[in-house]
């Protein structure tokens, strides 16, 4: 493993890759910090654009953007109380209060040092845990892959906890989309409706671009394509590296929340936002200043930032070792792997060790560059808001059309992207979560062929899924998770109903 990791560092530290990492960190910082843009959307836009430059470079770029964006959401949250990303919402509680008290430098320094610590601890755990998990998963056969896909699908419940029924409906839409084209066993056309472009299936890229980027741009247009007023007078003059007393002061928060964040990140479906919420409320309980949280204390900035950055690294563990995407961004990453002709999971560690360990090394380097580039970035950040948002929206839409076209050089895919953008916009407007569409589309492509092949092995008997221990365990876990999420949703509904009737 150490040799592989050294090889990974060797690849990631080559001059070209280093330049790519630095540019991607800057891009990630911009996309995370500017409200209305997001890390997910930037990763989505970059998936087709990076297709032509080879998998190693492509994944260095994607992971760098992803990690930098998770941190950068806190910058605008602290400076303007406008979180650049959902995971930074909690950071704004104390961060913005600190800015109001004239302690912006301290708040941003705390956020960046805490983020880097969380990111590095998360990456260390990722580097050591993911290969072990992948080794265990090497025993999987078709039945286990099917059960694993089903387990992944039940995690939709946590992606769409606000409305479970709607989350499962959008998941079904994704699963149905995965069945379009030739049937995997008998090569019979399904849901093609006489359109020859559908015979090869629906391409993942236009669906991802439409679902996440186009729908979001349409939403911004409907909102008036305006950014909130910003205070561009704020100036930042923090230090580049964390002082020693930072680690002493926050030792409890840094150690507990980085582990907690990574663990929450591993749980598919939980993600960085949940981690930041848990991290904040956890720290509130064990911190000496717990009662002052929300009034502008640095602990209230450090706690969510350690946790959400650790979670972003943790989320890569199930993706790389099992091929299960636990969040919208990792679902998009899974799509990127498929686009490059690879399937994340146990075999990835055997077939592509250079790629996997370069990703690990890249994540370490990214966290170092977040520290180094932060100071300069915050200084120029306020200038970004001078670019008219209408221009930004138009350019993003243009990049989406290029991305949709470029993969198969087919204008038909632009239409697919547009139609799915419109559908996703209207679905999201009525509170239908969108990430399950991608989860369904990606896992549907694994579930059905695995099921059909497993049934061929067992001469059509479904007992194969219950007689193999890992498969049976995964299916039982799926059932428990499904019932538990239904029960929780019902309980929440009852509580709301009771409050309403008492009120």
């Amino acid at each position, binding site marked *: 493993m150490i040799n592989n990791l050294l090889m990974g560092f060797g690849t990631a530290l080559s001059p070209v890759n280093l330049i790519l990492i630095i540019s991607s960190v800057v891009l990630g910082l911009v996309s995370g910090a500017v409200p209305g843009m997001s890390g997910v959307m930037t990763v989505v836009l970059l998936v*087709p*654009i*990076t*297709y*032509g*430059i080879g998998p190693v470079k492509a994944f260095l770029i994607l992971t760098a953007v992803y990690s930098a964006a998770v941190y950068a959401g806190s910058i605008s949250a602290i400076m303007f109380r406008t979180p650049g990303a959902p995971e930074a919402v909690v950071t704004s509680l104390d961060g913005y209060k600190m800015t109001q008290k004239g302690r912006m430098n301290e708040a941003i320094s705390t956020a960046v040092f805490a983020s880097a610590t969380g990111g590095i601890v998360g990456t260390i755990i990722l580097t050591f845990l993911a290969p072990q998990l992948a080794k265990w998963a090497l025993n999987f056969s078709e039945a286990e892959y099917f059960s694993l896909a089903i387990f992944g699908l039940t995690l939709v419940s946590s992606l769409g906890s606000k409305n479970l*029924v*709607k989350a*499962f*409906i959008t998941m*079904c*839409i994704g*699963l*149905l989309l995965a*069945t379009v084209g030739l*049937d995997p*066993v*008998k090569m*019979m056309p*399904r*849901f093609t409706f006489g359109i020859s472009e559908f015979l090869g299936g629906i391409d993942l890229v236009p669906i991802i671009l439409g679902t996440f980027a186009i729908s979001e741009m*349409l939403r911004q*247009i*409907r*909102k*008036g*394509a305006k950014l909130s007023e910003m205070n561009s007078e704020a100036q930042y003059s923090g230090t580049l590296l964390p002082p020693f007393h930072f680690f002493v002061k926050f030792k409890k928060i840094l150690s507990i929340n980085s582990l907690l964040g990574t663990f929450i990140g591993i749980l598919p479906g939980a993600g960085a936002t949940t981690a930041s919420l848990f991290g904040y409320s956890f720290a509130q309980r064990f911190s000496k200043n717990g009662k002052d949280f929300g009034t502008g204390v640095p602990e209230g900035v450090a706690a969510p930032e350690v946790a959400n950055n650790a979670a972003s690294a943790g989320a890569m563990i199930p993706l790389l070792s099992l091929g299960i995407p636990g969040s919208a961004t990792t679902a998009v990453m899974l799509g990127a792997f498929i686009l490059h002709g690879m399937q994340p999971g146990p075999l990835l560690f055997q077939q592509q060790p250079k790629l996997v360990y370069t990703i690990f090394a890249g994540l370490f380097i990214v966290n170092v560059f977040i520290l180094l580039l932060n100071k300069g970035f915050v200084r120029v950040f306020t200038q970004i808001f001078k670019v*008219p948002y*209408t*221009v930004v*929206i*138009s*350019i993003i*839409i*243009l990049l989406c*059309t*290029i991305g949709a*076209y*470029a993969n198969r*050089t087919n*204008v038909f895919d*632009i*239409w697919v992207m*547009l139609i799915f953008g*419109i559908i996703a916009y*209207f*679905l999201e*407007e*009525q*509170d*239908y979560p969108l990430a399950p569409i991608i989860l369904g589309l990606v896992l*549907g492509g694994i*579930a*059905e062929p695995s*099921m*059909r092949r497993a*049934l061929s092995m067992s001469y*059509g008997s479904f007992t194969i899924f219950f007689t193999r221990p890992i498969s049976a365990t995964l299916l039982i876990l799926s059932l428990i998770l499904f019932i538990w999420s239904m029960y929780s949703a019902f309980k929440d509904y009852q509580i709301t109903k009771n409050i309403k009737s008492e009120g």
Partner: protein
Amino acid sequence: MRTFKKEIIIALIIFFISIFLLFYVNTFDVNQSKGVGPAFWPRIIISFMLVLSLINLGSLFKKRDKIMEETEAYKEEKDIEEIKNNSKKFFISLIILSIYSMFLRTLGFILLTPLLLVSMFWNLGYRKKILAPVIAIVIVVLLAYIFPNYLNLLLPRGQSIFRKVSYIFY
């Protein structure tokens, strides 16, 4: 904006599509004598979706008053004129994008994209007569140079004369 009417329309569309697909899926198994055929997996998904859409419809009627309250509160909070104006921008953007997609194959990236950008800028409110076309042209030239040459991404060339023009750039 979430409204009860839109909720019902979407839920009904999902419901009717599920019913249609449930019948349509039978055509996949015409040569299937026994065992799991091409229709098996889609049928499971569609049946699940049908059940979910029924539960969704039921819960919508239960939550009807709450959704209507939310809609009213939103309408009171927002300026109706602004909402209408933004809706106009929204639909014009969709028309611009549809026209762009329709003619891209024939006219190509180089000619059509500056028009797309300028019309989008104009529609969204950026109406500087000189700067807007200049920005659009600079972006198109940059993209036409970077994408094919450095990222190996092909851009639509168009047909006949437009195709010849595109060779100047990429």
